[in-house]
């Protein structure tokens, strides 16, 4: 039962890592560069959720606050791409890496100036409540996180597999030039991907804040861990990102329980190193060779 208990809490954490890793992969596929501000977008989404939901702030119901936060972050992502990142469209990947690192600093600074540096947590209707399934005790928060992740990823799956825009996003990530020839407005599609990653970051952020406290620098460490998860899954694969996130989430509590103190902090990176050595493309790498 101990193992099962650890597994449930690991999966719940892993879902949040997975969602954040999903954000990394979305951007990587659209812009072919890593968005190092992804973790800070999660933090921003979390603070927006707190601003919309907590009593003393806007005091809105949880679901409405979550939706509003996702909406604002979606618009934020779209505008970020439209007015900041499109300026370096076609430049080497390096330019975007540096730009997003700088953006991360800006977002952290702005959040600190607005909301202060003390940890805050989100007030939810299910805080502190648990479900008892036999001898297994599941915090309602964990159940909500898992269900929300399942719902979100299923929606994303159908969007990418079965809608015109979703397939067009796949097409432009697989061959941008050909997509351009087909009349797919590649730049606008990229902006929509950024909006989508903003939405995913906001939802992950609100779920994160429901489980623990947030402060402006939380996105940094969390973002790096989620990046490791994305690399484990194979940067460029959406199911891989989720799987990588779950793996990292599950490994952590087990390492904390059964291995010497401190090893839970390095466990995700050890896992990443192992994957990179044994399967350099990541667990779910998409490999294609162009036929001549």
């Amino acid at each position, binding site marked *: 039962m101990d193992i099962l208990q650890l597994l449930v809490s690991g999966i719940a954490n892993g879902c949040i890592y997975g969602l954040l890793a999903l954000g990394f992969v979305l951007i990587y596929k659209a812009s072919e560069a890593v968005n190092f501000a992804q973790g800070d977008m999660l933090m921003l989404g979390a603070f927006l959720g707190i601003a919309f939901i907590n009593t003393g702030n806007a005091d809105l119901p949880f679901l409405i606050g979550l939706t509003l936060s996702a909406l604002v972050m979606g618009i934020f992502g779209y505008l970020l791409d439209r007015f900041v990142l499109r300026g370096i469209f076609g430049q080497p990947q390096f330019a975007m890496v540096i730009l997003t690192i700088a953006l991360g600093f800006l977002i952290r600074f702005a959040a600190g100036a607005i909301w202060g540096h003390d940890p805050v947590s989100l007030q939810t209707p299910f805080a502190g409540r648990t479900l008892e399934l036999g001898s297994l005790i599941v915090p309602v928060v964990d159940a909500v996180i898992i269900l929300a992740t399942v719902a979100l990823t299923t929606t994303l799956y159908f969007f990418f597999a079965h809608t015109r825009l979703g397939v067009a996003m796949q097409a432009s990530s697989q061959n941008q030039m050909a997509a351009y*020839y087909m009349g797919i407005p590649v730049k606008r599609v990229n902006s929509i991907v950024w909006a989508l990653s903003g939405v995913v970051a906001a939802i992950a952020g609100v779920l994160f804040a429901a489980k623990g406290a947030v402060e402006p620098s939380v996105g940094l460490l969390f973002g790096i861990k989620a990046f490791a998860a994305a690399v484990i899954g194979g940067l460029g694969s959406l199911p891989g990102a989720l799987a990588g996130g779950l793996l990292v989430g599950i490994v952590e509590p087990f390492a904390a329980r059964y291995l010497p103190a401190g090893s839970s902090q390095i466990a995700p990176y050890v896992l990443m190193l192992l994957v990179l050595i044994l399967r350099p493309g990541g667990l779910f790498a998409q490999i294609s060779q162009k036929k001549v």
Partner: protein
Amino acid sequence: MTVRAISALLDVRNLETFYGPVMALRGVSIEVPEGSIVTILGANGAGKTTLMKTVSGALAPHKGNIQFRGQRIDGLEPDVLVKRGIAHVPEGREVFPFLSVAENLMMGAYTRRDRTEISRDIDMVYDYFPILRERRQQNAGTLSGGQQQMLAIGRGLMSRPSLMLLDEPSLGLSPLLVQEIFAIVRRLNQEQGVTILLVEQNAHVALQTADYGYVLETGRIVMAGSAEKLLNSDDIREFYLGQSADQDSDARADKRWKRKKTWR
């Protein structure tokens, strides 16, 4: 200039395009009459692909103008031009490797909204290329080179173009497949009324297919004429078809002086 339509579907005038720092087109003028197949011949680096990219809107010209159905289109984006009826089938096929054959075709129709018509056109593409119907659920990246070329042409058809830019469709294909693809290109021209601008290194098959041809060298048109005229021209025979100008006489004796192109 024997065959020259009164108003061409595509009219390119004095086009100059830079490819990075290189001036790839140095004042190119061509005309493509409606319903015809026009080919551009030329060696590597002559500027053929740059010409195609400029016409389809992927590159903006530095100087000159392009008219399509009498309207200026130079500098417009590809998504606008696809809607107006120009489809670009790029060199090297460039299919979407992780999308199925059917999804690739759907992407060709991205600018269209009429669902029933789109599925009818997918059927039409499958009728021209039956192998694609068999493989419709398969990822395009797993197709053979020839099948990918068929898919690329089919995908180009899906926007219902009146002008199709075909860039090097014979690239990397076996001679038999080349014949097959060009036979279908001719059928598309006759049955669907698609005007075709064809870029080729394989001068032989291109001139057999086309009505009219241009020869592009280092960014300039150096020769133009009906396909028949070009096929019989000594320069084309010598430098693009690899046939000696006078095969009956003693080849060794004539080769002592390397023939020069007449346009140099």
